[in-house]
């Protein structure tokens, strides 16, 4: 079986892939990166919380011009997953303003984004129409 690794460490793979945030145990603010302290309340105790895999698209852009090596066009968006905002691409739909609309319902999906020299496969995530 191919060994896999998540694209980012806040993507939890397995039977039901989902995103995981660092939640401040004091004020509840959620962050996806490694934390030194809470940006909202300055405390530094965090717990891992699972983020809903369903969300709605609260903003997007269709990037037609990007840095070399990045395939275009693609849809970059901000997804409101039950109150937690998540950054991700909208996938499995045509990248056009006719197909991608503000407020549309989306769900998390995962897919292979490359393999390294040892055969480890990187798994990325995006959001597809629900």
């Amino acid at each position, binding site marked *: 079986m191919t060994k896999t*690794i*998540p*694209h*980012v*460490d*806040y993507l939890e793979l397995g039977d039901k892939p989902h995103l995981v945030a660092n939640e401040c145990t004091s004020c509840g*603010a959620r*962050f*996806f*990166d*490694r934390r030194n302290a809470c*940006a*909202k309340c300055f405390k530094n105790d965090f717990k891992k919380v699972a983020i809903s895999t369903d969300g709605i*698209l*609260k*903003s*997007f*852009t*269709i*990037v*037609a*011009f*990007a*840095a*070399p*090596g*990045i*395939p275009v066009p*693609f849809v*970059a*968006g*901000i997804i409101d997953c039950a*109150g*937690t*905002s*998540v*950054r*991700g*691409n909208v996938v499995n739909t045509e990248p056009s*303003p006719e197909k991608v609309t*503000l*407020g549309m319902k989306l769900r998390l999906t995962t897919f292979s*984004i*490359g393999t*390294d*020299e*040892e055969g*480890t496969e*990187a798994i*990325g*995530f995006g959001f597809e129409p629900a």
Partner: protein
Amino acid sequence: MASDDIWILGIAMTKFGKHSDKDIVDLGSEAAIAALADAGVTMADIGILAAGNLMGAGAGFGQQLQKQIGQTGIPVYNVANACATGATALRTAIMAVKSGEVRMGLAVGAEKLSGAGLLGGGGTSKKDGNKFEPRGRFGSVLPTDGRIGTDTMPGTFAQVGMEYGHKYGGVSFELFAKISEKNHAHSVLNPMAAYQKRFTLDEIMNDMMIAYPNTRPMCSANCDGAAAAVVTSGEVLRTLSKEQQRRAIKVSASVLTTDPYEEACQILPDVNTLTRNAAKIAYEQAGVSPSDLDLVELHDCFATAELVHYDNLMLCPEGGAVDFFMSGATWRDGSMPVNVSGGLESKGHPIAATGIANIWEVCHHLRNEAGDRQIKDAKVGLAHVIGLGSACGIHILERSGL
């Protein structure tokens, strides 16, 4: 004039555009020397230099400038604050004067960006065949730009405008293109602008798409340029000539903010809260309300950004930016002219110069020296910049009335 009032005594900008025969120090020097001449003073009068350059000049841009315009041994503050760098330099000089440590300060911002292309996109991609190893704060094994959203500026600010649409409704590709149409139309009257070409709405919408809904003319123009200002106190201004007093512009408010924590602010940069906060403080400091403003230069780094700042600067009721724009208010003959310089979309956006150049534009009108694009009888104006990260600078300016 009160002793502790702050005044802009002299201000200047280079023409924005392509300056292939000049380097960053040449441009900064040109603006600084012109600002000193405009103020009627020399480097011998200046007690502090605040200098900004974001890309290219290397360490000690202020000291490099001194070597060309006058080494007097005064302290130099080299500042960097993204697109708010120029405003930060000015604010630094203002704080020094306000503290009473110096009688006059000089602020300079200069940048060379012609041909810089797309800003903000992560370029480095990992070569095939390497071993995946989690790196950085997100523990990513491959670059995230383009795979998890976008880091590009056109895409980021496109989402800022679209988010406003999600919240309040009424936005469309055409609406944002119309904002750009206005600014390009304004630029025709501004000889300092990098581009002075009027576009039809069709031309804007059919131009090259960069990041929907921003096409190329809806993006700020990368170009070269510099701007500089000399500031002093009311106490010092009283000792100067009547002509200097007449042309001096009062800095009624000088505010710099960063973004306070809000949900999602680390997901999509929040350019709203810090602008609104800065605006509130600025109106209070100046004792003016938005309806008192005769003109506004705001940070239209993209057409999608201009819309949200109508709201953030409280030029319209909350949620009312679309109706406000569609009423024609922000055209130069409207009730609240915005970006009569042509804005960053046509005047250009040499990053560190922008935060002083927009103040130059407002001062020019308040001094009744703006020629063909003069806003008649302008008494009060506001200049706004925002740099991602984020930093927001707002200055409210008033003519001396002498």
